[in-house]
């Protein structure tokens, strides 16, 4: 029975429109986002923001034949609150028509059942977004105690997201997740005025991790203020640490996705030696980490072995590309875990090296294997003394260095990566002075 003034929820309007247009295969992503956002200049709150938004995304699938080949086209659209039932029906009808021109070979959609709402519980979800924002703000500024080296500016975003994923094959799953993300800029004004950009992202109220990150970034910035010259041009043993290790390892995560393997952008196959033949350095071992309980298609996600002793164990991806490759769909992964290496970071630094701790923007190209970037801060050890340097760039290929990797015993946790703190790369070209 409808009450007076009752408005049909948009979700129900979407289901009605799909039925009205006789669309039998579909996927609905219903996302509710709530956020608290704080923007600081030094130790002053410059702007505060809040957000409450509700997004509905609908993918419709259209089955047809072309040249006697069974096809499954799809098209994805957004639907908005305030749309009338007629508008929704018309948008879905147009999307279904558009999908009839998407000539992708047929693939199965994942199937499932209705599951209870999964609330990812931790210290972050025990508090309101505002209370968590206060605790993270306290942590952010706790290490900011010096006069010459300080936080120039910062942004903190607390976000609670509730995702519901429903498809025509019985999947009806939902989960609630809260994250804290942000960025800050550390500045050191003497002897040179320099700065370092840093970002952070946690699924928990990880005040200690943020404090550590701020402390390390302030120290790095102080070191950069003392760096005057670029390294001389030449070939170096390069040590990468921090987030750049993640960028390097994510090459293997991306190359092993079904979306890259199916069109032959990547030649990986199960059992492939991803480091090439004749591996003389450390063998790769990588685990895929499920950051979300379900993929955007509603496929349950769990941790999986990706690479064991250099050999590829899993190809990950969505239902379409996995179907084409004849493998079980796993969902698309974004996070990996790598065990510690055999060398301590101190042992890595016993011979001449160039340890790059900050690039302006490190680029790792998944297609070509090329990596490079301009050096904002590096420590150069010539066998006698360690000198901070800035400027110049490195330019290398992972295909040339992957047989001789060395990983540190020390570990680190970055967004979408848990693994060695540092990696040693031999014979890297450096453009310097």
């Amino acid at each position, binding site marked *: 029975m409808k009450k007076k003034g009752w408005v049909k929820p948009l979700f129900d309007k979407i289901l009605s429109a799909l039925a009205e247009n006789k669309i039998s295969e579909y996927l609905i992503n219903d996302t509710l986002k709530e956020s608290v956002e704080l923007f600081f200049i030094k130790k002053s709150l*410059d702007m*505060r*923001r809040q957000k409450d938004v*509700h997004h509905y995304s609908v993918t419709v699938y259209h089955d047809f034949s072309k040249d006697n080949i069974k096809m499954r086209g799809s098209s994805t659209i957004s639907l908005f609150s305030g749309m009338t039932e007629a508008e929704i029906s018309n948008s879905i009808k147009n999307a279904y028509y558009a999908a009839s021109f*998407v000539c992708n070979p047929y693939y199965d959609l994942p199937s499932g059942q209705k599951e209870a709402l999964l609330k990812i519980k931790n210290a972050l979800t025990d508090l309101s977004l505002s209370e968590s924002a*206060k605790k993270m703000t306290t942590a952010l500024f706790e290490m900011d105690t010096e006069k010459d080296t300080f936080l*120039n500016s910062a942004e903190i975003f607390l976000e609670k997201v509730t995702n519901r994923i429903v498809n025509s094959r019985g999947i009806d799953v939902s989960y609630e997740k809260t994250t804290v993300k942000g960025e800050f800029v550390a500045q050191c004004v003497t002897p040179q005025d320099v700065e370092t950009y840093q*970002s952070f992202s946690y699924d928990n109220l990880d005040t200690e991790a943020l404090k550590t990150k701020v402390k390390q970034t302030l120290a790095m910035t102080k070191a950069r203020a003392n760096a005057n010259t670029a390294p001389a041009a030449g070939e170096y043993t390069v040590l990468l640490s921090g987030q750049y290790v993640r960028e390097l390892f994510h090459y293997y995560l991306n190359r092993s996705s079904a979306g890259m393997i*199916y069109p032959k952008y990547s030649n990986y196959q199960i059992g492939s030696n991803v480091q090439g033949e004749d591996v003389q350095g450390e063998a790769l071992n990588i685990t895929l980490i499920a950051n979300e309980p379900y993929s955007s298609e509603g496929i349950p996600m769990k941790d999986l072995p990706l690479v064991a002793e250099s050999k590829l164990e899993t190809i990950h991806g969505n239902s379409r590309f996995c179907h084409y490759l004849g493998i079980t769909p796993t969902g698309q992964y974004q996070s990996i875990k790598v065990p510690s290496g055999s060398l301590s970071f101190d042992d890595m630094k016993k011979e001449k090296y160039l340890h790059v701790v900050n690039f302006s923007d490190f680029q790792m190209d998944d297609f070509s294997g090329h990596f490079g970037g301009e050096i904002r801060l590096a420590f150069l050890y010539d066998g006698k003394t360690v000198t901070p340097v800035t400027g110049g760039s490195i330019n290398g290929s992972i295909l040339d260095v992957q047989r001789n990797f060395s990983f540190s015993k020390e570990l680190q946790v970055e967004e979408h990566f848990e693994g060695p703190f540092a990696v040693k790369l031999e014979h890297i070209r450096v*453009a310097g002075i």
Partner: protein
Amino acid sequence: MKVNSSDYLKQVKPLLKTLLNDLLKEYSYVSILASDSKAMVYSVSKQGTSINEDTILNGRGFVVKVYDNKSYGEYSFNEITKDSIPSIIRKIKEELAFLKTLLPDGITEGVYARLPEEEASFSESTDYIENPDTLGSELIVAHLTTLSEKARAFDNRILDCSAACRYQQLHKLFLSEKKDLEQNILWTTGSIMVMASRGEEIKYYFNGYSNLGGTEILKEMEQDVENVAKYTLELLDSEPITPGEYDCICTPEVTGMIVHEAFGHGVEMDMFVKKRALAEQYIGKQVASPLVTMHDGASAAGETATYFFDDEGVPAQDTVIIEKGILKRGISDSQTAMYLKTPPTGNGRRQNYERKAYTRMTNTFFEAGTDTYADMIASIKYGFLLENASSGMEDPKNWGIQLMVNVAREIKDGKLTGKIFSPIVLTGYVPDLLKSISMISDTVKLGGGGFCGKGYKEWVKVSDGGPYIKAKIRLG
């Protein structure tokens, strides 16, 4: 044809006016930005065909900005009915205000004045020849399929060609006590990326296309696809460059990347407020060759970053940043301009209604010079023609340069030798590079195929470009 107004925004405008007037009883400044954006991405490659919404640009929603006689707060939402207005007001008055009471010891609230406002009311729309909605998905996909297949058939060494088309039909309303503004904008971009394999390594060449208009751009792409395939195959014979400083000619696209990344970010004046930009100390001083004049502005060119008012209701402008080598001024959002006591330049932009406004570039470019491209190549004893910019990162604090380009073509004794080096990292100190500019070609070309981030987020559409320039640049 002019882009039509949004029926949805017309429908909700009375509700937004009610919300505005109710909030003005409480706050001395209130503005509401309403946005209705349809943005789609089409692509065809061996991966398959896709027709999807653009998840960053697509959406309908609102952002309210209020001033409580001390500081500013914002509330973003995307559902409004007559019945929901009281709860929106309660959220702003109680929860948004509450946030500043939660600050830990030692953290203070920033204090600002009220934003100044002048009466303004207008409705403007951009033009197009062919609306993507009218052309329809069937023909857009057919065009892209033809492009992709043509490139793949060009040579058996070609692995794939990804052809894509993206458009945004954007409608915005800006309402405040003194302003009632409306704009309706359509831009379309395209891209062709051709890949060829050299063993395990895949080389690729990427070309972007853009206009302030509709799918008429697809014709330009059709004329260019074989060139992109040819350039990709050339890359198979490329080799790494010997690091060093060289005489270089930059194509307009690489010039644009230098203008945008190396200098443009450094004159975004919200960085002046934070004391993060070296440029603040160089206003009125020489920062580039006297041959260089640089512009930024939503009304400075007709490209993908063209609009009639920014996301804070400031009319679009054409700002001359460098005039004959002298740094004249920067660009700013409203709050920054008020803080620095400078006029706002119409550069307050949001990724979408869910995000904060920052000072952002729009259409950014160098003016043309008087040299010809042929004379510029002929002037090089040994150097490179740099083309196909792929990425760049700003460093406003220290004016360090990092740009990646895909191709450096060798020039010897005033002629291109046909030898290619790839990939290339450009580094150096911005004023050194800009002051070394010794020749500038007589035509300007802008491209708006890409997005610009503030750091690693807050993506907005921009265009950049200029003429061919000759400069001394460190390559690695």
